[in-house]
């Protein structure tokens, strides 16, 4: 039946937006006696399954727009936005965060102005849409996001046992997690920019509350930092809407799919403004500090923010505008912000020993690379950017959850305390190892993207700049990943196994994510041909892929890598164990030195952090200045276009 699938898909889209929301509300109001963990698990299963089903029915459909009546929905959205604004004002005044208060007021004023002046007269018809990029985003949100929700169950329980001083607000916590997922689905399925802004603000709000979960002073400060920076982006987004509505009273161009095809002269201004909002949300350099601050939140929140929600919303929206940005100087500026962020964040990660901070810098860097691809915006870079997004989401969520589990068990998130993890927590160490391999080693995901990025940049305008950035930044990231890997696999003797008492659902999530890292690397050609290539084709009229011979070689290498560990089973005669060489002064199995006066010292080995070269302060300052400069150039240029 012609069009039958249209109805089916719209039902799936609405389900994915509304179902997490319903779960969220149920979780918020469920009675104390009620075991809510089942609701979390079943909801997560439902969301994941429907996302997969959406893939099954939608992958070959191309772009579909949906006419959904927006009248009452718009009203509800405005009311929710105003309620949130009032709540934020209250909190802002209570905590004396006046910059946030001002931004809330400015944004509320802009939205009200928009609604009063233009919004009332605009009745958009195609409010929702759907294409392959939506499927990819839906899979990232639906599978990884819901896995993180399930993981949170066990984590939060331990978290509250370890931190009895923190008020148990778990119901609100899970409410926000699911509301977050709902908003993400809304964001990626909306064609109406007004709706996108609404969902955009919901994600800002959810992350604000989640970052401040522990209600300590540090958490509150960091939550407000995140709020202010994201609101700054929100203001730019709202300004873009007003500009569009003022220039086009019919409001047709408020539809994303029409806007991006409306030509450079018109579309570049909203594209730059909204990309600016994307930069704030994706924590690019002048705004990176909010994501670093966000790690005060419980680890599953970091995992969620870094892999499947929030920052991915930022790069998603820039990707949507990539066809407008391509070949423009404004686009180049945005790409340079991304490129410089990648380079500096990768360097700064070298100087960090806090595992979550290393992961945060790596996220910032990788998002920078995606932004660089989107800003230059040629068809083959679009392909690379989407691939990067997928690989990054999978590997990074795994790494955060591993770090969270380790932290729960050893009580530290410092990499220096993770020495010999392979002995103490063997399964987790192997999972972390695979996650890290996914981030920087051939033939796993990220290196495939890096490779494709080099090949794509080489033909792009000013591409050489980005290749140089990639060459240096890529090396820097190799350093910090490898020394961390080295730390966890170093074999110290006489360690007790700490891998007990981890709840089965945590294991399940970790196993699934580990599997996904490997599977995604194995089937990426399939993902490319089924989803990414059709999408790029539809936008640009041409597409790209890796050469078949190279894919074969990569797969062979991956196969080799998978079977190599089994070589340890076939060494023939068991090797004889000996203590490591300690300059001839070994005592007690090589773990201690005998110093002068016969005192025995423990052997402590520490990694290099090269703070003089890759220290945070200097690089962060430089990056902030340079990136502000680039953003200002882009903004001045669009002012020039307006005038």
């Amino acid at each position, binding site marked *: 039946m012609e069009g039958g699938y249209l109805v089916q898909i719209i039902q799936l889209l609405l389900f994915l937006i509304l179902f997490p929301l319903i779960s969220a509300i149920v979780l918020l109001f469920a009675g104390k006696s009620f075991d809510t963990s089942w609701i979390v698990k079943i909801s997560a299963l439902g969301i994941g399954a429907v996302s997969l089903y959406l893939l099954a029915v939608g992958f070959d459909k191309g772009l579909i727009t949906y006419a959904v009546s927006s009248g009452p929905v718009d009203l509800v959205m405005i009311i929710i936005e105003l309620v949130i604004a009032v709540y934020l004002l209250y909190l802002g005044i209570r905590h004396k965060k006046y910059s946030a208060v001002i931004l809330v007021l400015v944004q509320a004023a802009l939205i009200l102005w928009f609604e009063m002046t233009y919004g009332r007269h605009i009745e958009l018809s195609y409010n929702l849409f759907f294409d392959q990029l939506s499927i990819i985003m839906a899979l990232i949100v639906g599978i990884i996001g819901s896995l993180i929700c399930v993981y949170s169950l066990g984590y939060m329980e331990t978290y509250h046992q370890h931190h009895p001083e923190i008020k148990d607000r778990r119901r609100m916590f899970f409410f926000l997690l699911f509301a977050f997922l709902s908003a993400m689905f809304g964001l990626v399925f909306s064609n109406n920019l007004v709706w996108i802004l609404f969902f955009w603000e919901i994600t800002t709000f959810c992350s604000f509350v989640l970052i401040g979960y522990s209600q300590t002073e540090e958490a509150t400060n960091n939550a407000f930092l995140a709020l202010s920076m994201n609101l700054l982006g929100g203001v730019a987004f709202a300004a873009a809407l007003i500009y569009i509505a003022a220039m086009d009273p019919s409001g047709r161009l408020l539809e994303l799919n029409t806007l991006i095809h409306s030509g450079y002269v018109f579309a570049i201004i909203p594209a730059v403004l909204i990309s600016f909002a994307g930069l704030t949300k994706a924590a690019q350099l002048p705004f990176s500090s909010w994501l670093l601050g966000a790690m005060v939140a419980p680890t599953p929140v970091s995992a969620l923010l870094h892999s499947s929600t929030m920052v991915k919303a930022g790069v998603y929206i820039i990707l949507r505008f990539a066809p407008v940005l391509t070949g423009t100087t404004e686009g180049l500026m945005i790409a340079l912000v991304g490129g410089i962020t990648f380079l500096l964040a990768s360097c700064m990660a070298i100087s960090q020993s806090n595992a979550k901070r290393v992961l945060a810098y790596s996220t910032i860097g990788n998002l920078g690379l995606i932004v660089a691809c989107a800003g230059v915006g040629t068809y083959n870079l679009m392909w690379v950017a989407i691939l990067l997004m997928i690989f990054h989401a999978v590997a990074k969520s795994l790494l955060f959850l591993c770090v969270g589990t380790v932290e729960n068990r050893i009580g530290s998130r410092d990499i220096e305390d993770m*020495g*010999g993890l*392979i002995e103490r927590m063997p399964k987790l160490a192997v999972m972390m190892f695979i996650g890290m391999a996914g981030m920087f*080693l*051939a*033939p796993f995901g990220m*290196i495939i993207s890096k*490779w494709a990025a*080099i*090949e794509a940049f*080489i033909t792009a*305008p000013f591409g*050489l700049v980005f*290749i*140089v950035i*990639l*060459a*240096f930044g*890529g*090396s*820097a990231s*190799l*350093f910090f990943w*490898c*020394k961390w*890997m*080295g*730390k966890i*696999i*170093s*074999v*110290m003797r006489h360690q007790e196994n700490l891998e007990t008492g981890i709840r089965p659902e945590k294991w399940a999530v970790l196993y699934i994510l580990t599997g996904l890292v490997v599977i995604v690397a194995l089937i990426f050609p399939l993902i490319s041909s089924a989803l990414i290539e059709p999408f790029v084709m539809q936008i640009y009229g041409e597409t790209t892929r890796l*050469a078949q*011979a*190279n894919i074969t*070689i*990569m797969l062979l*290498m991956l196969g*080799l890598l998978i079977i*190599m*560990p089994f*070589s*340890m089973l076939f*060494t023939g*005669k068991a*090797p*004889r*164990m*000996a*203590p*490591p*060489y*300690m*300059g001839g002064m070994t005592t007690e199995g*090589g773990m201690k030195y005998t110093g002068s006066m016969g005192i025995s010292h423990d*052997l402590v*080995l520490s*990694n*290099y952090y090269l703070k003089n*070269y890759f220290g945070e302060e200097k690089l962060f300052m430089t990056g902030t200045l340079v990136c502000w400069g680039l953003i200002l150039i882009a903004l001045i240029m669009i002012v020039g276009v307006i005038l």
Partner: protein
Amino acid sequence: MIPEPYEAIVKAIIYLLLAPVLGGLIAGIDRKVTARMQGRVGPPLLQPFYDVGKFFEKENLVVTTTQNFYALSYLVFMAVAGALFFSGGDMLLVIFAFTLSHIFLVLGAYAAFSPYSHIGAERELIQIIAYEPMIILTAVGMYMVTKSFYVGSIVQSTTPIILYLPGVFIGYLIVLTIKLRKSPFDLSTSHHAHQEIVKGVTTDFAGPNLGRIEIAHWYEYVFLLGVVYLFFAWNPFIAIAAIIIAYFLEILIDNTTSRVKWQMTLRSAWLVAGTLGVINLGVLYYLRMVVVP
């Protein structure tokens, strides 16, 4: 242009069989020439083979059994990288496989959890990040001249690549110094008898594992010199002469300079890559993209 599959496989097999022989001979010549420069007679030409043979006769003594895995993986992926290179594969893929193999060496050193290995591993990593940008820029430079990343096409190019990439070539010579473990950049381990961190990254490898690392090193020699060949590929005689001169130069530098600190290594390698390499490519890019689009 990608060579026919079977032809590529034959080339890969030839490399896998002959590279250790050639690499071992190069190591032997290296030791001989070095000895003569130092006024010694030096070991017989085939000494490296005797050494490795001896390693495999020895008992497999390990600090941790995982060392077996890391040493073997280092060898296997080094061979894969070289085989891909000599069968005409994609330069970037070759570089990634090459990096992967070194990561295994570093991990093997970390796994031993001993002070000397540990410092060796950290230094080896610094060396890797010191040369990696330049080796990628080398591949990019070759692409700019020949319009291909495939070694098979680059080698058939009739353009004298060296004339377009003099800066890149100098940068690559520094890569070569680091990778051949020559002074002044032999930080992580050295071919000279002893250094301040004993044998650095290989301190805790013994017997057959050390033998595997040595063979991997032979594979590496042949691959690295193969890249030198590409710069001069339009004329094989000049290319072979260039390889001999370049290698002799490396031995000379090795014997006339003293080891520098890691700071100096990183700085000089990145400085050369960031200036000579980037300027060279920038000029080329400008000429190719702007002047003759």
